[in-house]
Every structure is written in structure tokens, then in C-alpha cells.
């Protein structure tokens, strides 16, 4: 029984890894107060999703989808192409967020989210 579970996990190793990465990113983002660390966590989460997406199109031993004699198995190119766009989006998000962190540091003198909230005087409702 447990061998079967292990085999299934191994068969889905890419998906498994991406879910673990996603959870690491999500957890770090929620628990860390440093804004830069939050952004790094965000990037880990994004990477997890990219891995997941690319893994959908992957086939064991697959080649790039160029029609050459003797090449039989192809990797699905669509997810890879999409993730290229996804990476660009993630880069622009990160760049913009870092610019905002610089501004925050200028205004508040800190990049610790709790301290910023303390300086602002909190009113969440």
C-alpha cells in the first residue's frame, strides 16, 4: 500500500515539487514581516505555478517540437510559450513592487511591515 503511494508520488514528482514550493512561498509571505522577503516569497510562489504549468506539457524523453526525421516524441510547446509570458508578468510585478518598497522606505524609514503599520496608526475597518 505505502509502496503504491510512493510510486504515485514519484510519478507526479514535478507536481509534488511545485505544490511544496507553492506552500513554502505562501507560508513565507504570510509569516514574514520584511517586505523584500515577502516579494521573494511571491516569486517562489510564481515559480511553483510556472513549474506546474510547464510540467503539464512535459513528456518523458520528449524533444522540442521541430519536425525532424527520427524524432517521435514531442514536448507540448504551448505551456512553455505561455509561461514565457507568465515570467515577464512576474518580473514586471516584482520590479514595480521593489520600486514601491524604495518609496515606502523613503516615507517610513523602514521595510518592516509591522513597523510601517505602527507608524501609520492602524485602522483596518
Amino acid at each position, binding site marked *: 500500500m505505502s509502496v503504491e503511494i510512493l510510486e504515485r508520488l514519484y510519478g507526479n514528482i514535478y507536481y509534488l515539487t511545485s505544490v511544496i514550493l507553492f506552500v513554502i512561498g505562501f507560508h513565507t509571505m504570510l509569516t514574514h514581516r520584511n517586505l523584500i522577503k515577502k516579494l521573494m516569497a511571491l516569486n517562489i510562489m510564481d515559480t511553483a505555478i510556472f513549474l506546474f504549468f510547464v510540467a503539464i506539457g512535459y513528456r518523458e524523453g520528449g524533444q522540442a517540437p521541430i519536425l525532424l526525421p527520427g524524432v517521435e516524441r514531442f514536448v507540448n510547446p504551448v505551456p512553455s510559450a*505561455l509561461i514565457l509570458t507568465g515570467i515577464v508578468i512576474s518580473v514586471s510585478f516584482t520590479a514595480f513592487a521593489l520600486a514601491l518598497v524604495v518609496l515606502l522606505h523613503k516615507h*517610513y524609514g523602514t521595510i518592516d511591515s509591522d513597523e510601517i503599520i505602527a507608524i501609520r496608526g492602524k485602522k483596518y475597518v
Partner: protein
Amino acid sequence: MFSLSHAPILMVVTLLTAGFIVPLVRKHLLVAKALFLGAGLLVTILSFLVAGNVLENGTMVYNVGGWAAPHGIVLVVDAFAAYVSLVISVISLVIFWFAVFAPREVKYEAGYYALILLLTAAMHGIVMAGDIFNLFVFVEISSLAAVAIIAVKGTKESVEASFRYLILSALGSGGLLFSIALLFMVTGHLNMDFMRQTLAVTAGQYPLNVLTALAFMVVGLGVKSALFPLHIWLPDAHANAPTASSALLSGLVVKVYIVAFIRIAYMTLGMELFYLLPIRQILLVMASLAIVAGSVFAIVQDNIKRLLAFSTVVQVGYIFLGFSLLSARAVEGAVWHILIHAIMKTLLFLAVGVVIHQSGYKKISQLHGLGRRMPLTFACITLGALSMVGIPGTAGFISKLYLALGALDAGQAIFAGLILLSSLLSAVYYFPLIITAYFGHDASPTVSEPSIAVQLPLVVLSLAVLFYGLMPSVLLPLVRQTAALIMR
């Protein structure tokens, strides 16, 4: 004769191109302003033509680059898309006008116009996208631009609010992309039409994928559209943005994400899912919580813009309530509310922005007697507030009526009661604004009305509130078709 078949893509392209040209001519501000307004006007005309064409000839499909689906990218303009993009273009044109003529609030005006243009282009794109990945790309453009038009104000509060918005928005994007990956896994398609057809066969084989995808999507788009427990970014973000941005964000942007949700959840995954999964109950509970809790939070606000922001949380609840009640009239009510809330909230945010700028007062308790100094502006605010409460004769009454009737149709009378309760609550938080403004001791005589160009958008929107309150039949065919499409 000019062929209308290219009009949908032209709407997006015009706004995007203008968005890139405007910062280039920033040295000649007059040219930049003219380009900005011209692009808005052109897109409004195109959206009217497209809406007319869709009503007459049915759904328009545009193959980008001539490649047909499933291999190419398509824009699909059905009644829903035509209706929402009509709303977006008209309301955004009014806001464009305000942004150009209102007193300056941001440092780099040309850059601000460019961001607004990008945001509007992305909104049209979300509405018309025929495949799910382009929808995602447009969602990302609009998220980034939406954060940027808050941050441009440059104050301490606005930077903090926009950073929080950015982080949560990025989290939402992650959820959305994950759900797209899961759906792509099951269907092998990105085109929403093909996805729907494939899902009819494969959804039963991979129920876990579809379930997880739906969960990620509710969270992802829920964060972006500020559905109740996920709304925490909204009050700060909308209250600390420049006036034109607040109006744009509250009136249009949150609703576009609802449209994206409806497109994927209702029109791609299909209604059958709603009878298998408890998703409808979850949405109903979240929407009801939004209506009650949003009203309670709004009551305790003294800052006018925060009050309006919490009112937006309530209205998002209304729209979700209508869509999840799943009776024809409730869905029609929700579709109506997309337009009517856009008009009312834009009117209120612009008018309040004018008041804050002219008087320097940001709190309701400071408004004593200002209504006598700024009669026209406060007449507009009063009309907007009455419409928010849902007084008959104003536009707000129409959508609330449809929602309440829809709740009765669905056999859920308790939600009709909820709408009534919420109307009373909204009277509790909107009337102090009006009462303090007209009564109480006299305001300082230095406060005066702004120029006519600034008042024009307020008057136009007020007339629209009255117009749709008294003659809702003008847009009814489009609303009916949209509701029928969603309930398909």
C-alpha cells in the same frame, strides 16, 4: 463603408497606442490631453457601434491575425462583452474628462494619463478576450495599472495602500494562473468555447482538477474584486487614490474582475457545476456577509472617501448576490447593477473629490453648511446618495428591484429581506453626509464651486442616474440578452 469587424480589436489597440504615445509628448501637455480625450472618445463611439451591431447581428468573433480558434487568438464580443465594454467606455470617458479638467493632484500628468489609458485598454481586453490566457494577461495589465494609479499620488498613505494592494493582487494572480493550469490540464485548450465543449466530456473524469481550479479562481478573482473577507485592501486603496483613480477603481475595475469570474465560472465551466458543487451557497454567504458587514463598517466611518470605499464592498456583494441567486431576474439585476453602480459611485467619488479639493475637509463632521456654498456639487452628491439608498425614481432603485424580485423568483425570500435591510443601512450611512452638509452652522465663505468644466461630468452622471431611474427600458434588450447568455 468602414467595416465594423475590426472594431473590437481597434478599441484595445487605440487605448494601448495612445497609452504609449501620451508619455512621449509630455512636453506638450495640451497635445497629450487632446490625445487622451480623443482616444477615449473614439473608443466610446466604437463601443456604441459594436453594441448596436451585436444587438442586430449577434455575437461578433474576431480572429486576431486571421488565425481561427483553437489555434489562433480570438476576441469574442457577445451581448455581455458589448454591454460591459459600453459601460467601461462611457464611464471612463467621463472620468477622462474629469482627470483633464480637474485640479492637479499628481506630479506627472502625462504619465498618469498613460496609466489610465493602459488600465482602460486592459479592461476592454478582459471583457472581450476569447481565450483564458489572454484574459489572464489583461487581468495582469489592469492589476499593475490599477496599483500604479493609486501610487502616483505619492503620499505616505497611498504608497502603503498601493503596496498592500499589489501584494494581494499578485497573490490573486497566482491563484488565477494556477486554476488556468488545472483547467488546461483537463481540457488541453485555452479557448473558452473549446474548453466548455471538452469539459462536458472530461469534467466527470477529473472532478478534483475542476474543483481545485474553481477554488483557486474564487480566491484569485475574489481578492481582485474585493469579495467580502478578501476586501481588506480596498478601503485604504480607494480612499487614498487621486479622485479620478478612486472613481475608476471603484466604479469599473472591481467589476471587470467579476465579469472575468462570470466568464470563466459560468460561461466556461458551465452551469451544471453549480448543481453539483456547493459553490453557489458559498458565494451567497460571502455576498450576504459583504452586504451586512460592509454596511456596518461604512456606518462608523467619518472619512468620506473611506465611507464610499466600504459602500463599494457592499455593492460588490450585491452583484455577486444577483449572479449566485441564479434566477433570470436576479441575474438581470446584477447585470444592471454593474452599470448603475458604475454611474452612482463614479458620481459620488468625483463629487466628493471636488468637495475635498475646494474645502480641504475630508471628514463628514467638517462639512457643516457646505451645501449652501457648493449647491450644485452637493445636489449631485444628494442625488447619488439617494440612488445608492434606492429611492424610486433613481437608477439605484431599478437594480435593487430586480435583485429583490429575483430573490423571490429563486424562492429565497430571505435575500429580498437582506436587500431591504441593506437599503435601510445605506440610508444610515449616506444621510448624515447630506444632513451635515445642508444644516448646521455656516461654512467659511472662501469655499466656492469649481469651474464649469469640472462640474460637467457631475451633471452628466446625475442626469444619467435620473435617466436610468425613469427610463430603464433603453438598455433593457442588451441586459436581457446578457442575462440569457449567462443563464444558458
